């Protein structure tokens, strides 16, 4: 029988994350990562994407397995609905990034989670993407995220938890801030 220092277990290895932070602070070149995705057109608006390799810690890395995703548009848009829309995949990315952050920060702060559920709503005026009105933006006019969290914590602690998760979230930053994109073609 063992007695652990921290009875809180959200399944996050905070010690390893803190070690990595310390190490990468000393060796910033190892902190340079490259994330990759490949996407192949199938038919119509249906595409098939996969992720497997990435670069980090100064070397080529790989996921344990190749992860694959179908994207399409619903029948409402005269498509076949073979998968989530790319827009929904962005929401999935934001939701899962914030949720991972909630778990990590909770572990670090000694907060035991019982359940975490995020509900996301991205508002969009499709006159933009359809080219109806050039003054309407293609992307979201706004994104709302609602968290339902059951945990051993006060409402103020939960609010701080969710706020810190946003502060440290890569996808929150990606969605909230401009990014330069370079596209070329063969």
């Amino acid at each position, binding site marked *: 029988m063992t007695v652990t220092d921290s009875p809180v277990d959200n399944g996050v290895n905070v010690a390893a994350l803190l070690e990595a932070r310390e190490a990468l*602070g000393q060796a*910033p070149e190892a902190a340079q990562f490259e994330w990759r995705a490949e996407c192949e057109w199938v038919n119509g608006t249906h595409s098939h994407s996969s992720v497997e390799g990435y670069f980090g810690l100064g070397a080529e890395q790989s996921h344990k397995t190749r992860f694959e995703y179908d994207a399409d548009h619903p029948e409402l848009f005269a498509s076949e609905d073979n998968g989530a829309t790319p827009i929904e995949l962005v929401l999935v990315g934001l939701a899962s990034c914030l949720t991972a952050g909630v778990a990590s920060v909770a572990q670090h702060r000694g907060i035991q989670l019982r359940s975490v559920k995020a509900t996301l709503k991205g508002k969009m005026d499709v006159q933009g993407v359809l080219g109806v009105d050039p003054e309407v933006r293609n992307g979201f006019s*706004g994104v709302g995220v609602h968290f339902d969290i059951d945990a051993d914590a006060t409402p*103020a602690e939960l*609010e*701080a938890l969710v*706020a*810190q998760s*946003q*502060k440290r979230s890569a996808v*929150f*930053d990606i*969605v*909230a*801030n*401009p990014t*330069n994109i370079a596209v070329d073609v063969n």
Partner: protein
Amino acid sequence: MVVIGGGQSGLATSRCLSDRSIDHVVLERGTVAHSWKTERWDSLRLLTPNWMSRLPGYGYVGDDPDGFMDMPEVIAFIEGFAETLSAPVFTGTTVTSVSAVDDGYAVVTDAGGWICRAVVLASGACNVASVPALAEALPSGIHTLTPLEYRNVEQLDDGGVLVVGASATGLQLADEIRRSGREVTVSVGNHVRMPRTYRDKDIQWWMDASGLLDERHDEVDDVTRARNVPSPQLIGSPDHRMLDLNALTAAGVEIRGRLGTVRDGTAMFSGGLRNQCNLADLKMNRLLDTIDDWAREAGFAEPVVPERHAPTRVDDVPMTLDLTDGSIRTIVWATGFRPDYSWLHVDVLDHKGRVRHTGGITTAPGMYLIGTTFLRRRKSSFIAGAGDDAAELTDHLSHFLAGGLAPTP
């Protein structure tokens, strides 16, 4: 040995060295309190009340202990302290190089050189105004200036002003420029909201009395983070008013998110403003809770009504700003400061040009740092923090010079 810098930190160090009969000189590029004389805007007052202005064996003796010194008063205060010192202060002496030599350091200046066994770096944490790289993408016709250059609104075009940064500097300048009648927009990133007064006392009184200002570098959870915390949104004014984003909004200042980039003449701001403000509100309330807890234990009567402030008002604000339509004529970069160690040729700098140190004791034997944010304790960057840091570092230094085992940092 040599102390580089004749501000409050260098002078406090000199006093502590003299108390230990350690021979030294103080080198100062200008005159005593040079940065206070030449690199501060006209209306600036200290963020700490007068009673907190204390240096070793020296303190405020005026009749307004709760007031805030303006720059002439700060300069007179530090000059008065300098007069109490016995060691030579070489003014008008700019250090051009410090390098390691056998058993010590070679300090080269524009007025001769010194070989010494120990060096204290007290040259200041705010030598250079940090300006983001995106400044290069600004369209022509926009005037820019840093807080080191800003003196008063007379320098500005009559048109609109974008202040980038929401720490004490950014908010004070936005407030002053708005009061001149100009249209002002503030770009807000990570910031620290703090009331000027709390439960009828200055916030610094509570921070001091409760021991928060004395919290040590080896006691806090993450000293790197503590050292990077922006200066709290405080202003030292005769009316002790609170200066926060809500006050600016009420005065007609426009609030935007963190400036992300400038593309095709358009400034693009972050959509994360709401969370930045929420974080600052939460942290302010946690500070006040901490103070309440301490006050309760210290026997203060509970306030009848808890003193809390309305959350920061964040409207759905635009995330772009056209910099080419003439509405913005000036950008003020209140985006922080950094030290200048271009003359320091000793292996103590990290990849960001900061001195590697533990509580001011650098990785080079006999080289010390003083006067930076959270060097040894939360108040290290305050005038009131110089004395304790100088005493402890000279203690370490004297053991080093004696060749004995130095106490642990």
